[in-house]
């Protein structure tokens, strides 16, 4: 674990010096998929603590369980065994309704394939995440404008996803992930489909969130450049920490 804390020690210190406590604690989780009788073990006894404001990169070969781990941490799926505690809440104890709220309020997701709604323009795509919390209209407008500004899409808000480039889409997805001021951003290969220029911009956005909002960022990536920007790098191999 300590091995990965090789880059940007200052940031880590900053982050830990502000809060210092674990926002996310993964305790000995396993995940087994059943596929037509075959059992596939995606994760096998993974434990991991992440502090508030920390920027953690998860790397590892394809099929090592990175996506699975992120999904479990974000409450999109439940582990076969083990416990995940986020912000003091044990995720496995949550009902579907509470879990939905958790995903909306506490976490902001960014996916490799963006997953914007094709029938909504950018503005609405960002706004959608603010709907479950019943954010007031004025507040929404303000936040959308701010975020669009920040991700450089202020002039693209009325455009539909099919009219935008991959980098623009991913920046929009980040704006959506940020609209509720989440404590944690979980990003699964957010730069997997971007060129280096866009990759740089996306990573900068994450760093900015970390710095300015003290948001915790957990990111799965194959890109060494991205990993190098993290406070800490966690390596997964065959479903276990290496």
């Amino acid at each position, binding site marked *: 674990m300590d091995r990965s804390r090789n880059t940007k020690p200052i940031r880590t210190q900053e982050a830990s010096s502000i809060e210092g406590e674990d926002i996310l604690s993964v305790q000995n989780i396993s995940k087994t998929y059943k596929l037509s009788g075959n059992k596939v073990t995606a994760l096998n006894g993974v434990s991991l603590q992440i502090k508030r404001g920390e920027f953690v990169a998860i790397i590892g070969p394809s099929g090592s369980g990175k996506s699975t781990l992120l999904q479990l941490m974000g409450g999109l799926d439940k582990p076969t065994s083990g416990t995940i505690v986020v912000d003091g809440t044990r995720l496995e104890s949550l009902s579907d309704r509470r879990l939905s709220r958790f*995903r909306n309020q506490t976490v902001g997701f960014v996916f490799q394939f963006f*997953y914007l*709604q094709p029938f909504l323009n950018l503005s*609405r795509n960002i706004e959608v995440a603010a709907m*479950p919390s019943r954010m007031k209209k004025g507040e929404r407008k303000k936040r959308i404008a701010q975020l669009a500004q920040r991700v450089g899409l202020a002039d693209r808000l009325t455009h539909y996803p099919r009219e935008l480039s991959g980098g623009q889409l991913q920046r929009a997805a980040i704006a959506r992930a940020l609209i509720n001021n989440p404590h944690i951003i979980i990003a699964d290969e957010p730069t997997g489909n971007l060129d280096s220029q866009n990759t740089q911009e996306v990573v900068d956005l994450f760093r900015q969130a970390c710095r300015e909002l003290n948001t915790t960022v957990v990111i799965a990536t194959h890109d060494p450049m991205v990993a190098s920007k993290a406070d800490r790098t966690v390596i997964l191999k065959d479903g276990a920490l290496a």
Partner: protein
Amino acid sequence: MITLRDSMVLAVTKLRTRKVRTIITILLASMLFGLLITASMVTTGVFDSIDNIRKDGLTSQYIVTVSKARNDPLAVQKLLRDPVLVDEAKQRYTALVKKKTSEAERLGISYTQASDLPPYMQTSDDASTIRLNINDPNGIVYNLLAQKYGGQPAFNDAQLHSIADRYHATAFFYSQSYSVKQGSSLAVLPKDGEKFYNQTDSMSNISSQDSIIKSQFTISPSNITDYFMLPNDAGWQPSSGALPIILPKDTVEQLLGLPQLADMATTTEKLNYLNVLRDKAETLTFSACYRNSASLNSIQQTLQQQKEIAAHANDATYKKPPVIYGLPDPFACQSPFIKTDTRTITEKQADENQKQFDQEFGKNTTPISYFVKFKVVGLSPSTQEVKQSRSLNDVIDNLLATTGIEQAIPKNLYDQIPDKSRYNDILTYTPLYLFGSEDNKQRYVEFATASDASRFIDQQSCVTQYDNSCKPTGRLYQASLAFSNSVALDDIRSKATSIFQYSVVGAVVLAVIIMWITIGRTIVDGRRETAVFRAIGFKRGDVALVYVLYTISLSLLIAAVALLLGSVGSVIVNHIYAHELTTQARYGFGGLGTAKQITLIGMNSWQIGMVLFVCVTAGFLSMLPPLFRNVRRNPIRDMREG
């Protein structure tokens, strides 16, 4: 939960994407439902219009004609074979023959019993049984039966009233039937006199010749006749000496000598023709020639004589009859006159004696002939016009047609005639006195509703079977719906309604398939969307709300477009057919005038409501299962797969 407003925004936004698919869905489904709405509007319109038009006539009423049931099919046979009556008839016949023989002797004329039919005969089935001959020329049987039954009325009106009242009868009335005196004739003289005499080779031909008007009349109350009257009774006056009469359209046509309308005629031509007919009928008075049996006989004999003389024109030995008759002017309604009379005084005396003898024993020997004047005061539908329904036009015709009114004399007018005795020869009625003194009344009971009328018929009347019995047995009456097709209309209406309901079911199946394919697909395709919503924190209910609102909006849109298309459809159908059908209806209404229109636009809010409800429900049903599946699925998997 997300707000309703937010979910509406998402639903409507979603509706606006995939425009082509959405529009095709809306068009397909709304055409289907629109078709149903058109069907509903058109049928409702037709039925309402027909109903409305019928209010101008008799057909809207539930009038039942009632007569006494004949429960024992053998009753007449038994009565005529009653040995007591047969014995009595034999005795009277013997006495009569005796009297005739002695009177003939006294007058010096020839008479044999052989020329005088007895009042009884052998039965066809069994030679040893004798039965009375109801057509006995001497009237012995008639007098016997009259003595036996003359005192007891054959129909109990009080009983009918009390029974019919149980079915909420609203009115009782009757018409009376009369006919021209037996053996006499009443004929409108044809334009072609020569032809007239040429055709009349035989006795039967003279009395039953093509006489345009029939020799039966009914005097009917205004309950029945009112609808058929020409405006202002066509100007008929009580003192005019003309008998007011309602005649079928085709009879009037013949009287006026109008050419028959071609079958191919358009309905407009038909209606115009009808209007001309009505106009001309208003001024139509005509005369018919009444001849009693003696007059008919003498024409017959004269014709016979002329033939005979002509046949012997070259025969020098042929001796012409002593009295030679001449035929009257064919247009004058007279009896033959004596051309030459070469009888001796003795011959004349013998003829006088024969005449005296005939008169003594009731044989009519004085020829009587005179004109009877008629004035047409109303038109009734042609009798042959009720036909098989092959088209909508025919159905309308039949629904509007009034049957059973032929030659009727309005009672209210007849009662005003100062001297009715002048019609004694043509308005006669003779009861048969079988089981009672029958009257000439055709009784009618009017009911307020079709169901009352039907119940009365079903529960109180029997139907004559092939063996002449009336089943079910024990019923007092024979009854059937008179004049109208009211029950038929109700019947057709309820059939149409049930056909409509079946087609709704059919349309629902089709619509569900269409909606299932389109809406269902939209939602199945929306799997990724659902997963993304779920991933960013939408609850299951939130996602469901969005799609429910989406479906409701879509269904309402379909319903609205269907309503629009349906209305436009019925306006178009109305535009194409209303005029034609109105003309047809007015024509089919027969002699009756009506200014009412047939419109093919009618609102049956229940039916249309049902269509719209079904439309929204179909949308809903096709949405629910895929939606249910979607929100239950693990969002991760769907995001991957989508």
